[in-house]
């Protein structure tokens, strides 16, 4: 017997440890659940962390109103299966209440508006630790993120003044009104996530798997046609075999042409990919430090 773990088992053990630390150190934690593969893996790990108990905290979904219908169904089925509470923060409601103003124009999206709804939901439900499925390999600002990431009482991130994090000793101490964002799968890569989904046979929304869909070519990607986007006169609606590498709002998530209709094929495709997964996310293309700027405000 070799006393050694595979890389996936070691990453799993690390994530479970972090999730349990959150449960032990905070009063009222929650999982931020987007319906994307990373938050699905995070939820799966939370299930492992507390088995045979149920996951002892709610899932929080920030609903932009611009969802893929497949994501919503997946979310509702999962919540039912796990027997956990679901908290929905509605961007539509933030707009109706006048807390935020809707963007207009051809590339309008509700992506940036989510921050306000997210912070309101965190505050309104007294959540003191919000766990997310963000990974350090995703984006350069995320590469500097801690496992336990402190947010001030405005929900803001101060990247230059982060607490040092050593060994497995996590410091979740805070003042009233402040909260933490915690990222248990910080050290996972896109490849690790897919290998883990394959190995653990975790259910994911069908959107990740190649399927036929109406799309238009816009900003170098295939944008799904939906009631939320306006097809311009010079744009042509085409029917293509598409799969999504990340899932965000239906208005900003572009798909890739793909024949990968099984998990095995997806892992192969990811291994051969020459573009990052967020390459099709128009929310990251609003400037060199778009992610850092949003994160400082309190974004995911």
């Amino acid at each position, binding site marked *: 017997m070799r006393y050694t773990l*595979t890389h996936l088992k070691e990453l799993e053990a690390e994530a479970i440890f972090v999730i349990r630390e959150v449960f032990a150190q905070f009063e009222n934690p929650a999982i931020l659940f987007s319906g994307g593969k990373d938050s699905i893996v995070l939820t799966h790990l939370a299930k*492992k962390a507390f088995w045979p108990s149920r996951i002892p905290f709610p899932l929080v979904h920030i609903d932009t109103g611009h969802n893929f219908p497949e994501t919503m169904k997946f979310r509702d089925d999962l919540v039912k299966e796990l027997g956990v509470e679901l908290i929905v923060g509605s961007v539509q409601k933030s707009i109706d209440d006048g807390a935020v103003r809707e963007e207009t124009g051809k590339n309008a999206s509700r992506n940036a508006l989510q921050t306000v709804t997210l912070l309101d939901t965190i505050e309104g439900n007294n959540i003191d630790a919000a766990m997310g499925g963000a990974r350090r*390999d995703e984006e*350069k600002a995320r590469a500097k993120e801690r496992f336990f990431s402190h947010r001030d009482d405005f929900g803001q991130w101060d990247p*230059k003044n982060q*607490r040092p994090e050593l060994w497995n000793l996590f410091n979740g101490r805070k003042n009233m009104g402040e909260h933490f964002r915690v990222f248990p799968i910080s050290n996972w890569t896109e490849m690790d996530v897919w290998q883990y989904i394959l190995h653990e046979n975790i259910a994911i929304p069908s959107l990740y798997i190649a399927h036929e869909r109406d799309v238009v070519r816009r900003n170098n990607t295939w944008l799904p046609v939906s009631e939320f986007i306006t097809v311009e006169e010079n744009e042509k609606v085409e029917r293509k075999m598409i799969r999504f590498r990340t899932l965000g709002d239906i208005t900003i998530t572009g798909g890739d042409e793909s024949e990968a209709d099984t998990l095995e094929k997806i892992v192969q495709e990811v291994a051969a990919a020459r573009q990052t997964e967020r390459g099709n996310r128009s929310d990251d293309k609003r400037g060199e430090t778009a992610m850092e700027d949003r994160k400082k405000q309190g974004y995911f």
Partner: protein
Amino acid sequence: MSDNYLDMQLLRFTTAGSVDDGKSTLIGRLLFDSKSIFEDQLESVEASSKKRGVDHVDLALLTDGLKDEREQGITIDVAYRYFATPKRKFIIADTPGHIQYTRNMVTGASTANLALLLVDARHGVVEQTCRHSFIASLLQIPHLVICINKMDLVDYSEERFNEIVTQYKEFASKLKVNDIRFVPISALHGDNVVNRSTNTEWYNGETLLHTLETIHIDSDQDHVNARFPVQTVIRPKSDEHHDFRGYAGRVAGGIFKPGDQITVLPSGFGSKIKSIETLDGPIKEAFAPMSVTITLEDDIDISRGDMIVRPNNQPRAEQDLDVMLCWLNNKPAQPRAKYTLRHTTNDARCMIKEVLYKVDINTLHRIVEDKEITMNDIVRVKLRSTKPLFVDEYNDNRNTGSIILVDEATNETVAAGMIRS
């Protein structure tokens, strides 16, 4: 599809070096040659390099992600980078060379299996090399790989290489590092990084990547001293698992098996392991760094912060701790101030009772006159805690031998400590 991803290990390493010794180039080459840089990342780095008037592609921009870092062209914080080969997955903790050097390197080193140090072949062992090596040995990184870089600028001279190796070994005899290796490389031209170089026929050792892929890391964890700090207690109280009572945690050392006699600290109660549970079913043994749930034969009172150990191999119960402390905060240590101490899953309050000496990390000399503890200082201190802690020497077990101190007013992590004998 091949299943070899189910046989891959994880190696965490830290890189140290300053701006000029080619660290970014070396990391860039490892990422490039393992196909871990994507086209859109490269395009964006190319565009940013051009915008800054740099004539080459500045690979540091790949992870110098923060606005201030990009504007000032410096690395402020530890950056984590990832790459994989068919044999292993690698996590690089890339630490900046200048600002808050000690703080960042200590952070990066705390979880590393290996440290990669760069030495410029033209300059040989310099003050900085000593400093990096000392921190690596202090944090007990099990393996040290010294890359003697820019060999192209010394005509790939074997004599120069040997000179530096001798120089380094002389200095390193003062350190506690068991495994030191030397590789002559040119990060710029790729000699001995991924592929063997024809310019160094005299070198019989392995390439850097081959070393990273094959170095023996199974023994990096402590598999001798059985230690299980309890994180939380799992009690489902459901119909199906009505009487289930499990202790959740991550094995910090040793091997646990069902049937093992155990002792719970601090109560001293004894019992036997009934089962080791996971969602995927019960398992036959658990070892570091696995996260599991342990059930016992007897119902005894156990809560977070307690430690499950073997009766014949127990950690020391100490209230007075001899600690090598690295100060991480702008605010100097206050004499006799109280801090919250975190050790495994346990908390206590503590006070710095005495400063024995400060270490000059460039010369390793002990400074006994200067008792003030400021940012980036490494000091040997005596701590007194409000309750006994169950500790091992850091050199025996990094998990049960390490602590952090938290300032009770600001809640910031202000120091990292390694427990001595």
